[in-house]
């Protein structure tokens, strides 16, 4: 017999070693994520996937499921925490969605709709993060970075280049590129790199292709992030 745990009261089967997040999504239950990507080991930094397992808060993307566990996910408490985490990600950067090329394709924005983020709630930090337009084909707008390190990981593990890394710490943490000048144009980055397509928000953007798909017809304009994610993981 396969093992199972209870997610919000419903049985979810799992294989040994499978995480709560993977098992839940496979069984058609949505748990949100931002820093998780099926092609990489779990990162565990955004905490959007937070659930309560056997009474303790854990990251669903990084926690292997256990037989008989009772896991709470879609509850007012947990959803409230997810909403606050999203609000934190918004206020620590500079997100002006209406003028963002990624609007409608952005996972942060889509999650904000999903979790009914209606106000910023916290004070804005308004950090000073200049854009990098030095590369001929790709623009970097650091204002929107949520530090998921997907570009870091993709560039290192898929492209074999290590174009990106994080430096600084705490609220001063920020993304840097692999050049003494600090400019993307001085790295070996190419628009065809896996890292060029992986950013869940609007940091790494192709140049010269603005608003090819009109607002209103974009990925999350036609499907919620919940339905899209579940469709992809079934």
């Amino acid at each position: 017999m396969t093992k199972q745990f209870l997610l919000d009261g419903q049985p979810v089967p799992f294989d040994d070693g499978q995480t709560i997040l993977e098992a839940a999504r496979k069984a058609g239950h949505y748990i949100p994520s931002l820093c998780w990507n099926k092609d990489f080991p779990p990162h565990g930094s955004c905490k959007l996937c937070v659930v309560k397992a056997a009474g303790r808060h854990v990251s669903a993307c990084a926690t292997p499921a256990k037989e008989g566990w009772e896991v709470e996910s879609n509850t007012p408490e947990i959803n409230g925490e997810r909403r606050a985490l999203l609000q934190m990600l918004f206020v620590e950067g500079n997100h002006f969605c209406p003028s963002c090329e990624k609007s409608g394709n952005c996972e942060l924005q889509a999650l904000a709709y999903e979790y009914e983020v209606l106000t910023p709630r916290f004070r804005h930090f308004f950090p000073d993060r200049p854009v990098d337009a030095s590369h001929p084909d790709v623009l970097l707008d650091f204002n929107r970075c949520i530090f998921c390190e997907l570009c870091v990981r993709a560039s290192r593990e898929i492209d074999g280049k290590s174009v990106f890394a994080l430096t600084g710490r705490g609220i001063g943490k920020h993304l840097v590129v692999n050049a003494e000048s600090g400019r993307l144009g001085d790295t070996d980055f190419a628009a065809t790199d896996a890292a060029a397509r992986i950013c869940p928000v609007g940091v790494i953007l192709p140049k010269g292709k603005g608003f090819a798909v009109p607002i209103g017809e974009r990925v999350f304009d036609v499907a919620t992030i919940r339905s899209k994610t579940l469709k992809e993981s079934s």
Partner: protein
Amino acid sequence: MSAHSSDPSQALDAILQRHGRDPTRLLQILIDAQDIEGWLPAPLLTRIAGALVLPRARVEGVAGFYSFLHTRPVGRYRVLFSDNITDRMLGNAELLDALCRKLWIEPGHLSEDGLVSVTTTSCTGLCDQGPAMLVNGRAIGQLSHRRINEIAELIRQQRPLDLWPTEYFQVDDNIRRRDALLGLDMAPGAALQAAVARGRDGWLAEMQASNLRGRGGAGFATAVKWASAKNAPGAPKVVVCNADEGEPGTFKDRVLLNSFADLVFEGMSLAAWAVGASQGFLYLRGEYRYLRPQLEAVLARRRAAGLLGKAILGQAGFDFDIDIHLGAGAYVCGEESALIESLEGKRGTPRIRPPFPVTKGYLGRPTVVNNVETLAKTCLIALGGGEAFAATGTAQSAGTKLLSISGDCASPGIYEYPFGVPISRVLEDCGASDTQAVQVGGASGICLAGYEFQRRIAYEDVPTAGAFMIFDGTRDLFEVARAFVHFFAHESCGFCTPCRVGTALLKGFMDKLADGHGAQADLADIDWLDRLLKNASHCGLGSAAPNPVIDTLQKFRPAYERRLVSLDFEPAFDLDAALAEARQLTGRDDHCAHLKTHEEEEK
């Protein structure tokens, strides 16, 4: 300081050579390379990356993580005032201002001639002899206005640190109460001899019988940790001594390393014997760098005596040696998995656990991480047996505990007590009077009010890694909590959303209250943030960060409420004040040039 007159590129080559161009030694290389010019210019990072065959961005990532590494120029004299609450209570802010005035510089800014920079740093572990500072990494305590005047003069004269009065650099142990550990006079090797005579399994059995629990904070059973590492597959196994001692108000490990280093190293060897480890690290916080030469000397002596190296005490296969790695100003590196990342030359970001270090630690090998005091204590067990050790202290807390006592008392210093000692007894012994509160266990510990002074120091009651900071009736507990919140915001590694943003937001709320803009709604938001930090953080730093606020809000609420303007909501922003510059420019100060505040409108 740039004492090197030789060619910088030759100096770098020598450093790279010394570290075998080993990428896992990146942090150690950066620390040494910084000594060439006092900071790490961009081309230097490029050269280091090239030599280690690492992406440059990764090297920059590491250099930017540690607060003692500088990717921008700092003064040839770099002065860092320790900024623990105990330093603040002893007037460090006034001393910092005085020094800056004397040197004609602004705090946090490099002087135009590049001579000096002055700023603050987290607790440097000299709380018993504060206020304290680090000058180019060397500790100076007992700062007074007189001493500050002299230091300003020495800096102006550009006198090399080696020619400064030696008494400045004297750090006292201040041992006030000795019990089993501090009273022990052991010949180096005696404990190891006893453990080897028992055999590996016999020795582990003694450890099991002792009920020793970790002294670094979490209180995990030491024998269980050792047994897991022993049974875990993978080699060579590793023993790490955690001498990061970053918890504000804690300085007992400093004293153990200064005067009982043999016990600490012997404890590491005892752990290695039990688990079959061959590699050892002492991870020494950057603030204690001045202890390194004497620690290296102890290691050399132990090697010469056959207590480290190959076939220790004649036991074939008992090979073990110890390497000292320096930290560089990052409290989070005391967390064991962040410490291991740092040992591997990376940013000190805590790992996802499981797997735990006992199965996959340093370079994926089984690794035991223990606190300095825990390891020293194992000597007592090897010498006197597990049962005798277990017979002292309380039911769940065997043995003694070193307390680092500071703050408002007559005799700050190190006190060793059997577990179970009541707070009130400690207060009496150290000459504290009119005590309002005690912060036990550092910033991440617990704040006790007067009605709790009958509680006892023990894992089952008031657990502690050793800090014991005393606040008398004149102190403002809101300011205590605010200082700790600033500490956590400064030390957050920034990996996870709740801690990275939450500690910064919490700091903002506390500052808003301190500035007199607080409202009832802010207390509700603070409560909410506290809970989110506790629940959702990736490691113990984030989940402990709200502790000082939670405790003081509960036990000293008037200290907060005093600061509230009696409104439901009050913006952090003062509209009228924002117009001050415009008024000055236009030379107006009539009432039309002012914006009314709510209160005035109500009147």
